[in-house]
C-alpha cells in the first residue's frame, strides 16, 4: 500500500487531484474487473483505454504513468475494500494549505510541490487557493497559523518608505 501511494504521489501534487484521480481509477477498475473479461496482463491497457473515454486528458496521462504497480495491485474480489482503504490512507497524508495570487497550472504547481517534498515531506500534498490580494509570492497555513510571505506583506512592512521618499521631495 505505501508503495502504491508513493507511485500515485509521484505525479499527483494536490489533494483535489488525488481525490479525483482515485475516483477515476475506481471507475476504470470496476469496468475492467466486473463488466469485461480481460486477462490480467491486458488489464492496465484496458483500464487506460476506458479512462480515455471517461476522464480528463491530464488525469488520464497521470493514470497511464502509474503503470502496472498501481493497476495490477487490485484484484477482482478485494478491489472495493482495497481502494477504500487507499482513500482513507490518502486522507492521512501530510498537506499544506497555500494561497497563490493566480490559478497555477500543473507545471507551476509541480515547481512548488517538488520543493515542498524535498524540504518538508516526500509525500506532502498541497491544498491550493487563489487570493489575488497576495500579489506575488504566497501565503500559507502551518500549524493552524496563517503566514503571509507575499509581496503585499513585504510592502506593508516597508510602509513608511514611500512617505519618507515623498517627504524628502516636499
Amino acid at each position, binding site marked *: 500500500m505505501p508503495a502504491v501511494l508513493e507511485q500515485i504521489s509521484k505525479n499527483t501534487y494536490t489533494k483535489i487531484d488525488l481525490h479525483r484521480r482515485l475516483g477515476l481509477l475506481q471507475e476504470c477498475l470496476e469496468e475492467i474487473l466486473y463488466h469485461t473479461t480481460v486477462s490480467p496482463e491486458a488489464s492496465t491497457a484496458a483500464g487506460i483505454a476506458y479512462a480515455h473515454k471517461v476522464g480528463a486528458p491530464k488525469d488520464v496521462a497521470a493514470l497511464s504513468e502509474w503503470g502496472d504497480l498501481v493497476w495490477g495491485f487490485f484484484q477482482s474480489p478485494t478491489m472495493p475494500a482495497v481502494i477504500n482503504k487507499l482513500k482513507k490512507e490518502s486522507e492521512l497524508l501530510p498537506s499544506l494549505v497555500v494561497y497563490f495570487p493566480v490559478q*497555477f497550472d500543473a507545471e507551476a504547481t509541480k515547481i512548488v510541490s517538488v520543493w515542498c517534498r524535498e524540504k518538508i515531506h516526500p509525500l506532502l500534498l498541497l491544498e491550493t487557493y487563489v487570493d489575488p490580494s497576495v*500579489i506575488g*509570492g504566497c501565503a*500559507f497555513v502551518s500549524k493552524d497559523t496563517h503566514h503571509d510571505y507575499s509581496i503585499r506583506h513585504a510592502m506593508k512592512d516597508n510602509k513608511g518608505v*514611500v512617505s519618507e521618499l515623498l517627504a524628502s521631495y516636499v
Partner: protein
Amino acid sequence: MLFICALAARIQSRYDISYMSTFFLTIMLAVAIVVMIIAMITMLLMQMRSSARVNKLTYPAYEYVMRQTEAKAEKMLQKAQEEARHIVAAAEKTGQKTIQEYTKSATETHGVYLKTVEKFTNQLSEKLEESSHASSAQLEKLADEAIASMSSQQKVVQEKFSSALESVEKTSLQLEGETTEAIGELKRHVTEASTRLIEKLNAEGKQHTQYIHEHLEKAASSAEEQITEYQKARTALLDTHIERLVEDITARVLHKELTLTDHAELARAALADAKEHNLL
C-alpha cells in the same frame, strides 16, 4: 213555500174542498200571493208619483209662507231692538243720576276728611314748635359751653404750637450744620471709593490683558499643534492612498507581466524564506 203548502192543507181541511188537490191549491195560493205583491208594488209606485206631484204643486205656497214668517221675524227683531235701546237709555240716565249722587257724597266726605287732617296737622305743628323752643334753648346752652371749651383749648394749642415751632427752628439750625458736615464726609468717602475703584479696575484690566495675551498664545500654540496634526493625518491618508495605488499597480503589473513559472518561483522563494524562519 212550506208555509204556503201548510196554509193550503189547512184551508182544505177547514173548508172541505177535498175535491181540489193540495198541489192545485198550493199553486193557486202562490199565484194569489204573487198577484197581491205585484198589486202592492204598483200601489206604492203610484203613491210615490202622486206625492211628487203634490210637492211640485205646493212648493210656491211654502215659499210664500216662509217669506211672510221672515218679514214678521224682522219686524219683531226691530221692535225688540228699539225696546232695548229705550231700556239702555233709561239705564244710562239712572246711572248718571246715581254717579252724580255718589260724587256729591264723596266730595263731602273728602272735605270732612281734609278738615280733620288740617286740624291734626295744626295740633302737631303747635306741639312741635313748643318742643323745638325747649330744645333750642338747651342747644344754645350747649353751644356756649362748647365755644368756651374750644377757645380754652385753642389757647393751649396755640401755646404748644408756638413752643413746637421754636424747637423745630432750633433743630433745623442744628440739622443744617450737621448736613453740611455729612455732605463733606460723603464727598470724601466718594472720592476715596472712586480712586480705589479706579485702581482696582486698572489692576484688573492689566490682569485681563495679561490673561488675554496668555490665552491667545495658548490658542495660537494649540492651533499650530492642530495644524501639524492635521498635516500628519492628511499625509498619512495620502500615504495610504499612495500605498494602495502602488499595491494596485504592482498587483496589476505582476499579474500581467509575470508568467505562471515566475509566480511559482516567487512562491517557492517565499516558502524557502518561511523554512529559513522555521515556520514550515
